[in-house]
């Protein structure tokens, strides 16, 4: 191991971390918050936000999240210091930090070769990417439970619901993800996308399954080898289980306003509540990113694998520039797919009424988990028959 790899580039890593945090908090969250309110208004036939203007610039309500953030951050904590509630708001900082840090294992592009070195838009390419994200989300849920149990009775009832929902959702999510891990054979999200950056022929796979012995690559009808095409059931299960796990609407029974007010967040106000609202928007983005990477091929362009793209562009303008263009293209493609999945989530949230707590739990234990088990058995049988994933 050379000294260069032993001593990490602190400056470079700090710059990367800073740009990731800024991109998420200053661009991602306001956009998600804006889209959330706009989409809900459009679906419900209301005009929605749009009135907030700073120096007569309204930008169709895009400044509203900024105004909300400024209001929450400038509010004073109403609890007197002797109440001991002051320490509690620090929990919200921990929840926010854990959620942001979970993004460090999310790859935003593939790996591109520039001369001697290579570049990949990922802060921490950890071996166990998916489990790392799960661990951080579990930490954030634990901190929320910790803080919620110190609140009033409504807060505590909400916290009980949150704890039960997170635990059940996590189990269902893990089970629902197992078939995809079986297909990809890796926990690293970047590897999963690299795997999907190819095409497969469903007809070939079926003829093999039926004992016809057709060759996988020999058939002309090819589809992108995206997870959603390989295992559509897993997509539905993972999207639902992840929404349950993170308490995205309509599975947020612990925050029924009429009954529990803000639930586990009931004892937060001002900046603390602002941080929790930020974390909630980031969680929505995180689920969307995971679903995009695992089921929609991440940054992969259908029928145009990275190697082909670089080779074709490289013939005209050289390899260095071709890699740079490819990086930009892939980033744009990933963000487009991500926006699509975010919009799907917003659509689900607006279209479905909030689930009762007992119904959410029943959904987890009686529908998602058995369905995931069936999916695992089916995927195992198919992969075993094919002798590997049809990539």
């Amino acid at each position: 191991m050379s000294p260069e790899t032993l001593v990490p580039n602190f400056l470079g890593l700090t710059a990367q971390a800073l740009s990731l945090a800024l991109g998420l908090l200053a661009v991602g969250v306001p956009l998600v918050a804006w889209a959330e309110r706009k989409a809900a208004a459009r679906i419900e036939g209301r005009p929605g936000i749009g009135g907030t203007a700073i120096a007569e610039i309204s930008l169709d309500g895009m400044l509203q999240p900024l105004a909300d953030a400024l209001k929450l951050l400038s509010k004073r904590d109403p609890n007197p210091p002797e109440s001991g509630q002051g320490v509690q708001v620090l929990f919200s900082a921990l929840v926010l930090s854990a959620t942001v840090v979970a993004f460090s294992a999310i790859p935003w592009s593939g790996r591109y070769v520039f001369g001697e070195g290579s570049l990949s838009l990922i802060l921490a390419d950890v071996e166990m990417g998916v489990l790392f994200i799960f661990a951080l989300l579990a930490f954030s849920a634990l901190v929320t439970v910790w803080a919620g149990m110190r609140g009033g009775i409504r807060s505590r009832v909400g916290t009980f619901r949150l704890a039960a929902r997170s635990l059940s959702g996590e189990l269902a999510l893990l089970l629902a993800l197992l078939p995809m891990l079986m297909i990809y054979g890796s926990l690293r999200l970047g590897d999963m996308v690299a795997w999907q950056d190819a095409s497969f022929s469903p007809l070939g796979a079926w003829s093999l399954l039926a004992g016809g012995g057709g060759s996988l690559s020999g058939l002309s009808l090819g589809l992108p080898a995206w997870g959603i095409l390989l295992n559509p059931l897993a997509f539905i299960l993972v999207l639902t289980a992840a929404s349950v796990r993170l308490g995205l609407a309509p599975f947020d029974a612990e925050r029924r306003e009429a009954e529990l007010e803000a639930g586990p967040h009931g004892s937060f106000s001002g900046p603390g509540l602002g941080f929790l609202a930020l974390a909630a928007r980031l969680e929505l983005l995180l689920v969307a990113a995971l679903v995009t990477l695992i089921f929609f091929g991440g940054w992969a362009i259908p029928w145009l694998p990275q190697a082909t793209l670089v080779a074709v562009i490289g013939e005209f303008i050289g390899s260095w520039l071709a890699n740079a263009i490819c990086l930009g293209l892939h980033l744009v493609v990933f963000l487009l797919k991500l926006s699509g999945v975010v919009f799907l989530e917003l659509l689900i949230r607006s279209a479905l009424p909030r689930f009762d707590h007992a119904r959410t739990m029943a959904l987890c234990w009686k529908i998602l988990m058995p369905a995931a088990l069936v999916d695992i058995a089916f995927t195992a049988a198919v992969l075993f028959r094919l002798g590997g994933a049809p990539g």
Partner: protein
Amino acid sequence: MAESVGVLILFALISVPACLYLVIAGRGAGSSGPAREESAAPSPAPAAKPAPETARGAVPGASLLVAAIAYLVLQAAVLLLVPWVLFFVELGPVGLVSGALFALPLLVGFAYLWRRGALDG
């Protein structure tokens, strides 16, 4: 190495300013404004009825414990399945059979919980 350092830097970048902001923003709380006078006189409003523990009655302590234990057992089992699914193809028929044998007691336990009504809300 570089991975963990990147994660730590990101964590520090977010948590330290956020905590500092909360501490500074909370410092003024309760110190400004007119001092509240503690009055010994009983409030004219009648004492509020204690809120029910949940919307439907008491917090179900025992079933919560059962659910927690069931969750722990199943979670550990599912985590043990992760390495199995990663190397599932290489393991061949032996892997397939041993995976099924591993899952069988869990499935029986899950079916038992279901039949006993532990999963009913």
